[in-house]
């Protein structure tokens, strides 16, 4: 028996060594995730409406390119990046995949994506807002196409506002409530509307980065201008942290809506637990069937020293090992053609990412009357904000934000200590990239 044990353990060590050697020596398989020379495999997650829109686009591409097949592979959002990491490391990645802007930097910096420079001329690039094009580039080279954006605005319950005696809401970005005005609105709702919290914010789980909107509104930054060091330990950082901690101290938000909670803005808003919800436009297809149209409206996020918003939305990238780089690039160009992008955004209730479509009225499938506010809110995003969330190590920074914001909101960790911890984690994340 002892001999058998030694044999098995020996085999394990030898096997591990062989696998390690094979990986180190570059004996990884070719991209076996591809379905063949005329097939493009495309991994994505999405709501039912988004998936239907992607399938329709896939069929349209097949019609345009006879003999080509677009094979869509569905993933859950929670597992998307863990799966994609494993597939890329194992050489079995799909030809194309959907990726949010915050995770894109890590993939492009680690050399996993197809450099799209040869396929997109300067004229092509000029069709996108600079802040978005910046978000898909690494060291000046594009590695994905900005497919759409989404952003956060404030949905409010008209009946609860009436009950609190609030008769009007800001109708332009310039008129958005100041932080002080927003606090007064919350205090009034708290006092006048019984059993309801004033609002819920969408910073749950991987959405922790949305807290940066408050930091930017306060005039702060998480990274310095070179994007090489943390810059959060500042007067603006302290202002933003203390202001947002007060939401929990004052009972402005449900106590269980902190960063590690699963109390998302759509479910809490639909349940009638809150009077306002800082919700992305992509949540409208979920909210709409559950709440009567006349019950809720939308307004802008409050403004501090400046207006700001978060960079939501997704890009689509081709993987470096694709067997069909020409075809993959053609599909990416097809996805961002004006007509195709417009159709996708209308069905999925997203904001387009092409300049030509930004000022066009799209025929959204759900609550088109609210979308102009979302579109105007999105203009608060600047290239400087985009650049801070598009660094390769942002995934690790976002994980640190989750832990530290939770400690600040739930455990009442002092604001300066929280900022220091975030800065330290950011420094380590930047050093490891």
């Amino acid at each position, binding site marked *: 028996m002892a001999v*058998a044990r030694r044999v*098995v*353990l020996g*085999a*394990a*060590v030898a*096997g*591990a060594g062989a*696998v*390690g050697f094979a990986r*180190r020596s570059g004996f990884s398989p070719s991209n076996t995730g591809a379905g063949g020379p005329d097939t493009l495999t495309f991994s994505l997650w999405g709501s039912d409406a988004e998936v239907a829109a992607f399938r329709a686009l896939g069929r349209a591409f097949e019609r345009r390119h006879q003999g080509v097949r677009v094979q869509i592979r569905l993933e859950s959002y929670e597992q998307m*990046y*863990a799966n994609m*990491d*494993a597939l*890329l*490391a194992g050489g079995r990645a799909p030809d194309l995949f959907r990726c949010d802007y915050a995770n894109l930097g*890590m*993939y492009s910096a*680690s*050399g*996993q994506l197809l450099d799209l420079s040869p396929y997109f001329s300067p004229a092509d690039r000029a069709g996108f807002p600079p802040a978005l094009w910046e978000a898909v580039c690494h060291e000046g080279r594009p590695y994905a196409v900005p497919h759409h954006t989404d952003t956060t605005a404030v949905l409010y319950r008209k009946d609860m506002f009436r009950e609190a005696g609030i008769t009007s809401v800001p109708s332009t970005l310039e008129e958005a409530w100041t932080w002080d005005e927003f606090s007064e609105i919350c205090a009034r709702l708290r006092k006048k509307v019984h059993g309801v919290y004033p609002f819920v914010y969408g910073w749950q*789980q*991987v959405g922790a980065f949305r807290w940066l909107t408050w930091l930017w509104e306060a005039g702060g930054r998480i990274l310095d201008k070179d994007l090489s060091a943390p810059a959060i330990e500042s007067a603006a950082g302290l202002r933003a942290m203390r202001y947002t901690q007060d939401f929990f101290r004052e009972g402005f938000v*449900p*106590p*269980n809506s*902190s*960063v*590690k*909670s*699963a*109390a998302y803005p759509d*479910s*809490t808003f639909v*349940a009638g*637990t809150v009077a306002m919800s800082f919700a992305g436009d992509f949540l409208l297809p979920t909210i709409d069937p559950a709440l009567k149209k006349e019950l809720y409206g939308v307004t802008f996020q409050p403004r501090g020293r400046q207006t700001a918003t978060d960079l939501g939305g997704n890009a689509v990238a081709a993987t470096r090992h694709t067997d069909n780089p020409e075809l993959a690039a053609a599909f990416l160009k097809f996805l961002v053609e004006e007509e195709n992008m417009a159709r996708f955004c209308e069905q999925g209730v997203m904001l387009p990412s092409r300049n030509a479509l930004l000022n066009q009225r799209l025929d959204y499938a759900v609550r088109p009357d609210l979308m102009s506010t979302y579109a105007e809110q999105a203009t608060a995003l600047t290239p400087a904000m985009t650049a801070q969330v598009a660094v390769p190590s942002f*995934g*690790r920074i*976002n*994980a*640190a934000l*989750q*832990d530290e914001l*939770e*400690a600040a909101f*739930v*455990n009442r960790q002092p604001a300066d200590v929280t900022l220091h911890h975030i800065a330290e984690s950011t420094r380590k*994340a930047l050093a*490891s990239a």
Partner: protein
Amino acid sequence: MATTASPPRAVRPQAPANNSPAPRARRAARFRETLAAYCTLGPNLVLVTLFLLVPLVMAVVLSFQYSTGLDSASWAGLANYRQLADDPVFWRTVLNTGIFCVATVPVEMAIGLGVALLFNKVMPARPLWRTLVYLPMVLSGVATALIGTLMFDQNIGLLNKLLGTLGLPAAPWQTSGTAAMASVVLITLWMRAGFNMVIYLAGLQGISPEMYEAADVEGAGFWQRLRHITIPLLGPSTFFLLIMNVIYSFQVFDTVYVMTLGGPGHSTDVMITYAYRNGFQGRQQGYAAAIGIVLYVIVMIFTALQWRFSKNRDTVG
């Protein structure tokens, strides 16, 4: 579970002094036996080596490296383990894992035994009751945890609505560390009681009825029969369940991840959720592997101690 004592090992025959035909035949027979054993064991050994031991060795190697999982890894020496030693969140997760283990293992075994004793008797619709208790075990852990989030939601959950109906204050399931841990423990008990019940039921059905008849003749009551016959004779089942439950509790992930994500703060963070966050969200795979190796060592030590000191592992039953 087996209820008989293990047979004694066969005494090895003396080596023969000469090469007579009889020993040669015995050697051939033994060779055939060994060959048959390896043929039977072979597929399992290959699977264990490929999917258990090779990844284990690779995880040990990874724990000494810096790696995002995508670009090439670099040698870190003991840096990941030093970082672990200095990481207060890691020690908090070790403590939480221990608390979770202590809060779940004895209780789920007691519930399992109690329900098994109940369902071992003749009663109406017995298979239905047994199925209902076992059902949560068949469901995926994520699905069960999702049901848990609906039941324990602080604002719109079923439990707090029930408490409100009874005029009681709402419990802070997501804002108090103790209540959050209690919610995860309660869902785990619901999930695991069925498994414990099935193992104990099998053990109970292996106990000879004559033992109880003899005890009845001697005038033993329910508690005396339980204490002096049932519990001692369920020794192997208890040993098996203890090991399995402890390993499960140390490896808990899906319930915590879905219900609380380790929060509020780090109140319900356990070692695996912390390793997952570091490995896949923070993309520090070397550090996550180091957490995994520490967990592996803890579970191995616990199992070895149980194995060494358990008196009734396979001697009675």
